[in-house]
Structure formats: structure tokens, C-alpha cells
């Protein structure tokens, strides 16, 4: 009975985190982006500085008509948002906030997060193909090409960290972390950050949804709640990637008073990374499609391989 209760509690808390954290990131994006552009951002919803703007947006999305294009493949079209959203929910379950604050402790959780987020691509592909829209198809193909290219440096960068920590478990990696990693794993961290932003299809890597070129890519035909799910998936992706970065490269819960406030440290570090991801969106223009592939294969993959080699040499020497 207690087992059932515990499982329920863990699931509910993951679900709650899944629903709250993306909203926090979204609101942070609204405000940070606005102030970086000399604006105020939302100011009305909820009274104080528009804190409830995203809730209001959610209400608006719920009220909107759910349109399925006549020529679309109905089932795939309707199922795609779930495929995009659920992997991040599952991935969030294994990310530890502190040594004992983790919903599901998997022995190979680093690999698990990468594997589940890789499944999320399929949602975009399905959406793009099933919309029966050329812009959508173009967006889907762009995102497929982009995500395949950036999967490699992402996995290599994570492999380097796993090698350094001698563990595939996120908890073990954060435990093995030391401040020295900030320098030693810096190239890998940068590769991870860039690849993560590309995986999330966020600016400057947002060609799959480039509104000036292909309307809104794979999501062009989506309305209402299904569109909101895609947006939620994007922000949940930011949360997952930020927390992952915090755990892999910034030591997760390590910091002053880590015994009591460890989870807070992880969240804070994750939030900082999320703000950096938002910052990149505001500061940099969108890349061109060929520049994107160029960056992945000419810069990131060699850099990640070099980092992996460096880590390997270091581990062997220091062992």
C-alpha cells in the first residue's frame, strides 16, 4: 500500500513539476526577452507584472477551436503533440534535484534522458508530415536533419562527462563533480549547450519553425490545445536540458548547505541556464540551413571528440 502511495506521490510531483517549471521558464522568457529589448512584456494578467500571462494563454488555447485540416492524416496529426510532449515528461522523472529527491532512480539515467528526448523528434516529424502542408513538411524535414546532426555532439558531450565521472547515472555524475570540471569540461559544456539549444529548435537554431521562411514549420496547421502542447513541449525541453546541464556540468546540488538546500541549488543553476538559453534567443540571429549543418559537423563534432579524447586521457592518467 505504501508503495502504491509512494509511486502515486512521485508521479504527481513529477507531473506538477512538469506543469509548473515550463510555465516559470516561459514567463521568465516573456520578461527577460522584453527587458532585453527595452520593453516591459506582459503587465496585466494576474495583476503583478503579468505573472499569470501564461495561465491566461492556456485558457485562451483551451477555448480555441481544434482544427484538423481536411487533407491531413487525422490520427497521426492528433497524436503528434502527445509524442512531442510525453518524452520530456518521462525524462524529467529521472533528473535528480538532490541525491534523494528524484522521482525514478535509473542506473543509466543520463542515457535514459538522451534516449527519451531523441524520441521527441518523432512528434515534430509526425506533425509536419500529417499536416498535409508544404511548409509543415519542409519544417519537419529541417527539424529531422537538424536533430539528427546535433544528436551526435550532444551524445558525445554527455559521454565525456560520463567518462569523467565513471558513471552513467546523473546522480553519480553530480556526486563525482568537482569545481575543476568547470575548466576541464568547458569545451564539452559549450558543445552540450549549443547542441541542446539546437535540439530544442530554439533561436538561433529555429530554422524548423522559421516564421519568416516557412510560416511555423511543422506546427503551422495546429491550433488550440494541440498547439499549446507543442509550446509546452518546447518549454519542458528547456527545463529538461537546463537541469541536465546543471547536473552534468555545474554539479547539480553541490554548493553551500547542500545537505538542506541541494534541490534549490539544482533548480537555481537550471534556471540560470534557462535564462542563458533565452538570452541566446534574444541576442543572436537565426542561422542559415547550411551554416547549421556546417556548425554541427565542422565545429561541434570535432570539438566534442577532442573533449572526449581529453577526458579519456585524463581519466587514464589520473587513475
Amino acid at each position, binding site marked *: 500500500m505504501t508503495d502504491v502511495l509512494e509511486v502515486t506521490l512521485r508521479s504527481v510531483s513529477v507531473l506538477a513539476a512538469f506543469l509548473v517549471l515550463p510555465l516559470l521558464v516561459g514567463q521568465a522568457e516573456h520578461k527577460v526577452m522584453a527587458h*532585453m529589448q*527595452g520593453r516591459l512584456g506582459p503587465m496585466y494578467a494576474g495583476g503583478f507584472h503579468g505573472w499569470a500571462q501564461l495561465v491566461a494563454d492556456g485558457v485562451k488555447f483551451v477555448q480555441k477551436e481544434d482544427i484538423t485540416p481536411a487533407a491531413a492524416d487525422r490520427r497521426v496529426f492528433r497524436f503528434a503533440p502527445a509524442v512531442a510532449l510525453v518524452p520530456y515528461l518521462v525524462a524529467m522523472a529521472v533528473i535528480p534535484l538532490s541525491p534523494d529527491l528524484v522521482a525514478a532512480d535509473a542506473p543509466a539515467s543520463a542515457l535514459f534522458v538522451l534516449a527519451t528526448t531523441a524520441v521527441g523528434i518523432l512528434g515534430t516529424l509526425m506533425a509536419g508530415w500529417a499536416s498535409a502542408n508544404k511548409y509543415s513538411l519542409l519544417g519537419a524535414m529541417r527539424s529531422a536533419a537538424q536533430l539528427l546532426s546535433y544528436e551526435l555532439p550532444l551524445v558525445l558531450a554527455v559521454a565525456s562527462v560520463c567518462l569523467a565521472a565513471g558513471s552513467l547515472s546523473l546522480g553519480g555524475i553530480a556526486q563525482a563533480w568537482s569545481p575543476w570540471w568547470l575548466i576541464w569540461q568547458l569545451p564539452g559544456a559549450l558543445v552540450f549547450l549549443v547542441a541542446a539549444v539546437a535540439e530544442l529548435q530554439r533561436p538561433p537554431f529555429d530554422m524548423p519553425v522559421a516564421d519568416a521562411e516557412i510560416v511555423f514549420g511543422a506546427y503551422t496547421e495546429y491550433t488550440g490545445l494541440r498547439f499549446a502542447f507543442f509550446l509546452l513541449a518546447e518549454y519542458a525541453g528547456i527545463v529538461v536540458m537546463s537541469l541536465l546541464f546543471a547536473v552534468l556540468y555545474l554539479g547539480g546540488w553541490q554548493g553551500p548547505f547542500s545537505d538542506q538546500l541541494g534541490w534549490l541549488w539544482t533548480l537555481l543553476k537550471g534556471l540560470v541556464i534557462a535564462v542563458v538559453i533565452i538570452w*541566446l534567443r534574444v541576442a543572436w540571429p537565426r542561422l542559415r540551413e547550411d551554416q547549421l549543418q556546417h556548425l554541427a559537423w565542422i565545429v561541434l563534432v570535432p570539438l566534442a571528440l577532442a573533449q572526449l579524447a581529453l577526458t579519456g586521457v585524463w581519466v587514464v592518467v589520473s587513475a
Partner: protein
Amino acid sequence: MSEPRTPRSGGALPGLLKGLATTARTLARPTHTTEYPDAPPHLPPRSRGVIALLEENCTSCMLCARECPDWCIYIDSHKETLPATTPGGRERQRNVLDRFAIDFSLCMYCGICIEVCPFDALHWSPEFEYSELDIRDLLHEKDRLGQWMPTVPPPPALDEHSAEPAEVAAANKPARPARAAGAPPPARAARAERPERPERPARAERPARAERPEGTARPEPPADSVPAEPPTPPSTASESGSAETKSPEPTSGEDQ
């Protein structure tokens, strides 16, 4: 804001860092945004918000409607015959404006109608808060257009050494008692104002004209001193005069 630079100055990385620095600096600065309905916007004094109509000046000559590039001005008028003022005199006709409407859902605010109006019946008003929930409600009739007249700013001050404005000149001139004592027929006042008004300031000596600035909604700076002497004759005229002639000046002069 700096001097123009060559696009590729020092590779990609400095540019990327510069972008980050610029956005971070902007983040640290206070924003310039004012939230409009809470804080009224500071508009330049002669902002072109909406077109106001001074109905009394309109002769329904249709110039504005014809020049309008998107045909959003609708004018209906009819002719009225005014009886001869003197025995044996000729009857005169004048246009009476029935409808003047501007469809602001079509209007592109080019201002051509204001430019072409020979009688200063159309004016730019800085008023801009006239949005509607239904696009059909943006077709504003003459009473609505007239309501914006008080918001029209006074014309800019003249150069120091320029000739006196016609109205002032006329007002400062002592009224000719012979003409002023007898009630000037309203028909004449209405008619006389029409053809001569804008282009011949030197000949503007009729009392009906001198009294204009006060009689209308348009505030003109020198007009303050004007109204003292001439108003009596027109107002009496309007009381005694025929109602059907609808002379613009006297009636409006009385309304205000």
C-alpha cells in the same frame, strides 16, 4: 549608432559576444515603455490623429471627396434658394450640407482632403482614441467629425513681420456704422464668406467675417479681442431672419 563598419570585422565570435553584451546592457537599463491606457502618450502638438470637420465652412464643393485616393468621403447636399434680399433682387442659391461622412476603415490618413479644402473645413485633430468594436462603426458622420473640432490646435503663430491675419485686420478696423447698423441680410453674410475667404486677406472687411473666429469652434489666438463690436447685428439678424436660410455664422454664434 557607431560609424559604419565593414560587415566582417574580426570573425563571428566578437559579434556574438557583442550581441550578448548589448542585450545584457539593455536588460540592466530601465525600459522606455509606457503602458498606454494607464499613461497617456505624449504626442507632438500637431499629431495627425483624425480628420475633424468644421461644418459651417463646408460648401459641399466635393473637392475633398474627389481628391480622396480611396474614396472614403461621402457628401450629400442639396441646393436651397434664398429669396432676394432687396425688392426686385435676384434669388440666390446656396448648398446645404446634408451629410458629410468619412469612413475611417478606408481612410489612409494621407491628408489630401485637408490640403485641397479651399475653405478650411477639414482639419487634423490629434485625437486618436476612436477605435470601434465593429468596423462598420468607423463610418463617422458629420456630427461625430464635428465633435473633434475643439481638439484641433490653433494654427501656428505667424512670423513676426508678416502681415496681420485677415480676421484680425478686419476686427481691428472700426466697423462701418452705416452698414453695420442695418441688419445685414443673413443670406448675404453666408454667401459673401464663401468665395473670398482664404485668398484675399486685404479685402476682408465685412463684419460677418470678422466675427467668425468666435462664432465657430475654432480657437484662433487673435480672436479674443475681436467679438466685442460686431456680434450684435448678426445675432439680431438670426433672431429676426428666416429660419429656413440656415445661415451658419449667426446661429452658431448664438449657440456658443
